[in-house]
């Protein structure tokens, strides 16, 4: 093919241009892209392009690549084979026996593809050059604005805040948790009491006798005080301060201070 008389491709400048393209072969997005770039050298509207000349340019490109021992991807070679076929169709008189499409039809389709690709490329550039969101024009900056406003209005959070503050500031006036706990005796309180009392108890004594005055009659207070004293006596037994015993289920629980005589 290189011996084709090719007036469009004779000049040294064109050959140099082709070699420059070769060097940039990785920069092409496939054979169609390369063809589109080659077609620009014709300096005509894509509608008037000479597909035959383009086919020659492409084939010369592939030849140069071979001469420079540059590996071309398979689709470039497939395109080269197809263009060689197209070139022969365009150059030879049509064979009436051939059922396939004419060389002109094939050439027209290739021209259409190139024009369409060029158009899409042009559109892509126009698209990217448009005013763009986040660069030229902007959306509402405060994405959470809605949520914030709603939170204020519907969870009445400012009210919560004021109530919260009111609660704290008035707590000292009423000491509400002291009021709440008036009928509760804690383990710590019971333990504190029993530690002081246990030294006086040399013999077995009913645990219930340790309940403080005023806690024996009211059932609620009695229950709380009994529970805390029982828990406290277990603590003291664990600490080795007392002995604890019960003669049977539901029998009184008795405790006794542990003294030196228990050593054995």
């Amino acid at each position, binding site marked *: 093919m290189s011996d084709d008389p090719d007036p469009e491709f004779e000049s040294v400048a064109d050959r140099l241009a082709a070699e420059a393209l070769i060097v940039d072969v990785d920069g092409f997005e*496939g054979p169609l892209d390369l063809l589109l770039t080659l077609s620009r050298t014709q300096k005509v509207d894509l509608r008037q392009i000479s597909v035959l000349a383009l086919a020659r340019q492409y084939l010369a490109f592939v030849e140069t690549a071979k001469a420079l021992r540059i590996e071309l991807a398979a689709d470039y070679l497939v395109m080269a084979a197809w263009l060689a076929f197209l070139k022969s169709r365009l150059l030879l008189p049509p064979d009436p026996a051939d059922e396939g499409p004419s060389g002109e039809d094939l050439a027209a389709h290739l021209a*259409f*593809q190139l024009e369409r*690709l060029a158009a899409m490329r042009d559109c892509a550039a126009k*698209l990217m050059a*448009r*005013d763009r969101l986040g660069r030229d*024009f902007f959306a*509402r900056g405060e994405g959470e604005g809605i949520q914030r406003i709603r939170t204020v209005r519907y969870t009445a959070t400012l009210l919560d805040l004021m109530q919260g503050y009111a609660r704290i500031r008035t707590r000292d006036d009423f000491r509400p948790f002291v009021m709440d706990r008036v009928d509760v005796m804690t383990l710590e309180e019971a333990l504190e009491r029993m530690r002081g009392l246990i030294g006086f108890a040399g013999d077995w004594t009913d645990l219930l006798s340790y309940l403080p005055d005023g806690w024996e009659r009211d059932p609620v207070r009695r229950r709380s005080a009994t529970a805390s004293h029982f828990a406290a006596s277990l603590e003291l037994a664990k600490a080795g301060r007392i002995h604890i015993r019960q003669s049977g289920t539901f029998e009184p629980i008795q405790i006794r201070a542990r003294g030196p005589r228990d050593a054995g």
Partner: protein
Amino acid sequence: MQDDAHDAPEADTGSLFEAPPMAEQERMVEAVLFASPAPVTVADLNARMPHGCDAAAAVEHLRRRYEGRGVNVVRVGEAWAIRTAPDLGFLMQKETVELRKLSRAAIETLAIVAYHQPVTRAEIEEIRGVSVSRGTIDQLLELEWIRLGRRRMTPGRPVTFVVTQEFLDHFGLESARDLPGLKELRAAGLLENRPPPDDLSEEGAEDQSSLFDEADGAEDSAGEDTP
């Protein structure tokens, strides 16, 4: 429109409660559009506003009110949004987000989806003359600029791609029909899916007529009948 009936309220016995006056409806639309970073559809506006409101009319009033102002009411597909006027972008260096650099393949693929939608992967490859890598499509899907449309009713039932509302919003387009140069391209026959002459399948020729008819409805009703 609701305010046409304001001097004959007795005649309007259809609804139990009077719809708010149009000026009030306009305020409501204004509040909602201002509060939402993303575009809001007319349907969504109507659903939020009191019964009997006409959000479409209120939006139109509002759009006119904001003409020439620092922010504008813009249409994005079937939805509406408030956006700063493009000529004031220079004030906004602080808000500017770094736009992700797209590869040439991605940019071209995006343009092809926008102008040819709904379009199959094979068609994208046919137009570009090169295979489309998985990564390119993934990147555009991830940006939410394209999404899957209906399957093509051809052998293999290939998926198609269409552009999204985010795409329209990002590029300041009211609809896919407002893409630059679309009319010229169509007139020049460059949006046709013309099959190569040696390809004797009937596939291509029949779907090109439906190209933009489908695309029109694609934004909001895409693919609900796709199994």
